[in-house]
C-alpha cells in the first residue's frame, strides 16, 4: 500500500477508536454529576453509591479517551502536512481554543474530583465534576466546528499569493449551521450512548437481583434520558440531512445510492446487487421517504449521483467526485438502525420495571433481559462509528469540500514504511488496551456499588487536621 492509503487507514482506525470513548465520557460525566447532585441535595446514600460506582467506570473510560486524544492533536501535522499548511490559518484556531478552553478545564477539575473527596467541602467537590462535564461539551463544540469547516468551508478566502486558506471571520466558522447542528446531533448521540450503558448495567444488576434498591433509580433515569436523546438525535439528524442536501448533495445521493435525479424518491431499507455501479436492486422501499428526508416534501427533487458528477466536473475540472457508495449507503442505514434500537430497549426497560415491579431473578424474562442488555451497550457505540464513517467517507474525495482533495493532502515525505510502523504500533497498543479496559470494566461492574460509603470525608479530614495526626488519604492511586 502507498503511504496515502496507509495514512487514511491510520486516521480512520485511530479516530474511530478514539470516538468509542468520547461519547461515553461526555454523557458519563453528566450522569456522574447528576447522581452526585442527587446525593448532595437529598442526602440519600444510594445516590452516593451510584456516583461512586458509575464514577469508577467513567474514569476507566476517561483515561482511554484522554490518551487516544493526544494522537488526534498531532496527527494532522504528522500525516497530513499539506492539509495542515493549507488550512492551518483557519483550522488551527478552533483546535487551539479547544485546548485552552476545554482540555485544561476537563483535566484539572477531574483531578480535583478524583482526589478531592476529603480535600474539598461537599458542594465545592460537586462543582468540580460539573466543571469537568462542561469541559467535555466545550471540547466537543470546538472540534465539531473544525470538522464542520471541512464539510462546509466558510469564513475564509484563498490567499492569491500563497494559495492557502486564510480566516476572514471566526464567528462564521464557529457558528455556521453545519457546526451547530453537528454539535447537537453528536451531543444527543453521546447522551444516548452513555444512558444506554447506564441502563444496561443497572438493568442487568436488577435482573440478577443485586443491589436492587441502589440500581432501580438509575434504570429509570437513564431510560428516560435514552428516549429524550433518541428524539434529539432524530430531530437534529433530520436537520443535518437537510443542510447536507444544500451543502454536500453528493453525500446525500451517495447515502441513498440515488444515481438519477428524480422526485418522490423512495428510501430503500435493504438492497442487493452492485451499489457502486449504476444498478442496484432495492428489496424494500418506502416511497418518497428520501425526498422527504432531503427536502421536507415527499414530492421533492433529489439530485442523483450522475448529475452531480457532471456538475462537479464542470466546476472543479475532470475527476471522480463520487464517494464509495457501498460504504456511505450501508453506514447511513446502520447508523440509524443501531442507534434507534437503544430507544426500544429503553421503552422495554421502563415497561418491565414500571411502578415497583421486579421480575424474579432466574426467570426467563430476567435472563433474556440480562443477555440483551449486555449486547445493547454496543449498539449506540456502533451507531456513532457508522455516523462518522458515513460523514467522513461521504465527503470524499474531498478533505476540505470543494477546496482540497484528500489525495493531495498527505505528507509528501513520510514514507510508507514509517506509516506502517506507526499504524501497526497504534493498532497493537490500542488492541491490547481495549482488552485490558473491557476486562477492568467488567470486573468493576461485577463488584457492584460500594456499601457503607463514608458520607463526609471532608469533615473527617478537617477534624484530623486539628488533632495534627497523619490521616490516611481518603483516595489514593
Amino acid at each position: 500500500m502507498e503511504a496515502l492509503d496507509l495514512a487514511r487507514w491510520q486516521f480512520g482506525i485511530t479516530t474511530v477508536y478514539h470516538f468509542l470513548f468520547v461519547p461515553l465520557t461526555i454523557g458519563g460525566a453528566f450522569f456522574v454529576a447528576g447522581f452526585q447532585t442527587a446525593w448532595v441535595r437529598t442526602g440519600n446514600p444510594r445516590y452516593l453509591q451510584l456516583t461512586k460506582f458509575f464514577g469508577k467506570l467513567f474514569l476507566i473510560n476517561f483515561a482511554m479517551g484522554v490518551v487516544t486524544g493526544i494522537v488526534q492533536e498531532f496527527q494532522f501535522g504528522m500525516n497530513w502536512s499539506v492539509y495542515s499548511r493549507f488550512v492551518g490559518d483557519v483550522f488551527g484556531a478552533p483546535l487551539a481554543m479547544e485546548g485552552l478552553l476545554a482540555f485544561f478545564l476537563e483535566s484539572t477539575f477531574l483531578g480535583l474530583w478524583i482526589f478531592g473527596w476529603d480535600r474539598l467541602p461537599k458542594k465545592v467537590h460537586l462543582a468540580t465534576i460539573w466543571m469537568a462535564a462542561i469541559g467535555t461539551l466545550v471540547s466537543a463544540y470546538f472540534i465539531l466546528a473544525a470538522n464542520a469547516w471541512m464539510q462546509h468551508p466558510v469564513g475564509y478566502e484563498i490567499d492569491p499569493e500563497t494559495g492557502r486558506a486564510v480566516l476572514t471571520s471566526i464567528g462564521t466558522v464557529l457558528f455556521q449551521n453545519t457546526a451547530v447542528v453537528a454539535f447537537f446531533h453528536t451531543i444527543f448521540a453521546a447522551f444516548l450512548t452513555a444512558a444506554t450503558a447506564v441502563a444496561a448495567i443497572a438493568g442487568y444488576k436488577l435482573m440478577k437481583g443485586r443491589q436492587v434498591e441502589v440500581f432501580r433509580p438509575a434504570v429509570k433515569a437513564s431510560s428516560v434520558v435514552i428516549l429524550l436523546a433518541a428524539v434529539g438525535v432524530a430531530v437534529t439528524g433530520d436537520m443535518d440531512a437537510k443542510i447536507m442536501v444544500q451543502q454536500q448533495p453528493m453525500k446525500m445521493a451517495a447515502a441513498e445510492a440515488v444515481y438519477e435525479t428524480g422526485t418522490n424518491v423512495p428510501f430503500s431499507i435493504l438492497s442487493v446487487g452492485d451499489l457502486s455501479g449504476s444498478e442496484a436492486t432495492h428489496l424494500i422501499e418506502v416511497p418518497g421517504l428520501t425526498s422527504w428526508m432531503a427536502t421536507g416534501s415527499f414530492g421533492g427533487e433529489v439530485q442523483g449521483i450522475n448529475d452531480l458528477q457532471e456538475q462537479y466536473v464542470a466546476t472543479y475540472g475532470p475527476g471522480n467526485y463520487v464517494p464509495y457508495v457501498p460504504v456511505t449507503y450501508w453506514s447511513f442505514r446502520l447508523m440509524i438502525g443501531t442507534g434507534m434500537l437503544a430507544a426500544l430497549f429503553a421503552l422495554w426497560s421502563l415497561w418491565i420495571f414500571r411502578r415497583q415491579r421486579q421480575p424474579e431473578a432466574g426467570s426467563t424474562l430476567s435472563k433474556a433481559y440480562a443477555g440483551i442488555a449486555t449486547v445493547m451497550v454496543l449498539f449506540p457505540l456502533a451507531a456513532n462509528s457508522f455516523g462518522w464513517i458515513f460523514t467522513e467517507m461521504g465527503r470524499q474525495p474531498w478533505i476540505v469540500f470543494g477546496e482540497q482533495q484528500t489525495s493531495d493532502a498527505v505528507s509528501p515525505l513520510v514514507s510508507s514504511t514509517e506509516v506502517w510502523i506507526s499504524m501497526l504500533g497504534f493498532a497493537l497498543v490500542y488492541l491490547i488496551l481495549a482488552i485490558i479496559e473491557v476486562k477492568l470494566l467488567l470486573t468493576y461492574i461485577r463488584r457492584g456499588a460500594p456499601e457503607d460509603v463514608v458520607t463526609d470525608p471532608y469533615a473527617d479530614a478537617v477534624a484530623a487536621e486539628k488533632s495534627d495526626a497523619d490521616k490516611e488519604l481518603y483516595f489514593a492511586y
Partner: protein
Amino acid sequence: MTIDTLVLIWFGLIAILWVGYFILDGFDQGVGVLLPFLGKDELRRRVMINTIGPVWDGNEVWLLVAGGATFAAFPLWYATMFSGYYLALFLILIALILRGVAFEYRGKRDDAAWRKRWDAAIFVGSVVPATLFGVAFGNVVGGSPISPIETTLPGEANSLNYTGSFFDLLNPFSLTLGVMTLLVFTTHGAIFLALKTKGEMREAARKTALRVGVVAAVVAVVALLWAQLYSGRVVVTLPMVLLAAVAFLGALAATWRGRDGWAFIFTSATIALAVFSLFVGLWPNVMVSSIDSAYNLTVYNASSQEYTLTVMTWVAVIMTPIVLIYQGWTYWVFRKRISTSMIPPEPQSGRADDRFAGAAQG
C-alpha cells in the same frame, strides 16, 4: 497590532507554553524515571505516584495546547516539524499513551504482576518523552535537513519539508540535549518528590536529587554552551545560560539545606531560563535548515495571518490567566506532603470503610 508584533507575541507564547510544559510535566516525568529506583516497595511506589496523581493530566495539557497553538499561529512550523520528526513523535505518543493509562489502571487490580507491568509503562513512558523532547529541540535549534521539494500542489509552491530520516535526528548535539532534559527532569522530579513527601521518602529523594543533580549540572552546562554556537544573539543567551546554571546550583544548595520549596523554585527557574535561552537564540527562526539558511522556517514565513493571530491573541489574553488561577488552585488544594503512613491499604476503593458488598458475586 501589526503582524510583526503578533508573530513576536505568538513566538513568546509558544515559548511560555513549552516552559510551562517542561516545568510541570517535567517533574511528572522525573518522578516516573525515578519510580524503579526510589520506589523500593509497593507503599513507596504508591507514595510517588500519588504525589503527581491529581495533577499530571492537567500538566500534560500544556503539551497539547503548545501543539494546538503552533498549529493555529505557525501552521507551517507545525506541518514541517510534526511530519519531519514523524517516528520520534510516534514514540513520544506511544509513551504518553502508556504512561497515562498506567497511572489510572495500575491500582485497579490487586495483582503484583499487573502493577509491575504498569510500573514499567510509567518508567518507559517517562524516559522516552523526557529524552526525545530534548532531542527534538536540539534539531530545531541546531538545524536539520530542511528544503523545498518539487510539487505542483496549490499552496505548496515554496513549502519546506524535512528531508532527513529518523536517524538524522540522533546527532551528537541533539542527543546531548536529550540527555540534558532527561537528567534535569529527573533532578526536578526528585526535588518535587522531596517537596511533596515526608520521612524516609523525602530523605531518599533529596539524596537522589543531589546525586543526579551534579551529573545533570555538568551535562546541562556542556549542552547549553554548545547551543551558543547556534544562538543568534549570544550576548543575551549566554548570560541566560549562566543564570540557569546558577539557579541549578542554587537548587542543589537548597536541597542540601532541606529547603525543598526553594529548590523546586530554582529548578523551575533553571528550566525556564534554559528553554527561553533556546528560543531567544532561535528568533526569528522557528526551525533551522542545515542545508541553507534560505530554507529556515521563520516566524514570518511560517505564521498565520494578522486576523487569525489577533483573534487567538484575545483568546489567549482572556483564558491564560483563568487557567493559571484554577490550575494553581489545584496545587494549593493538594499542597500537603504525603507519607507512607497516609496511603490507604486498599488502592482505588478509597478508605477501607468503602467496602464492596458484592466483591465475590459473579
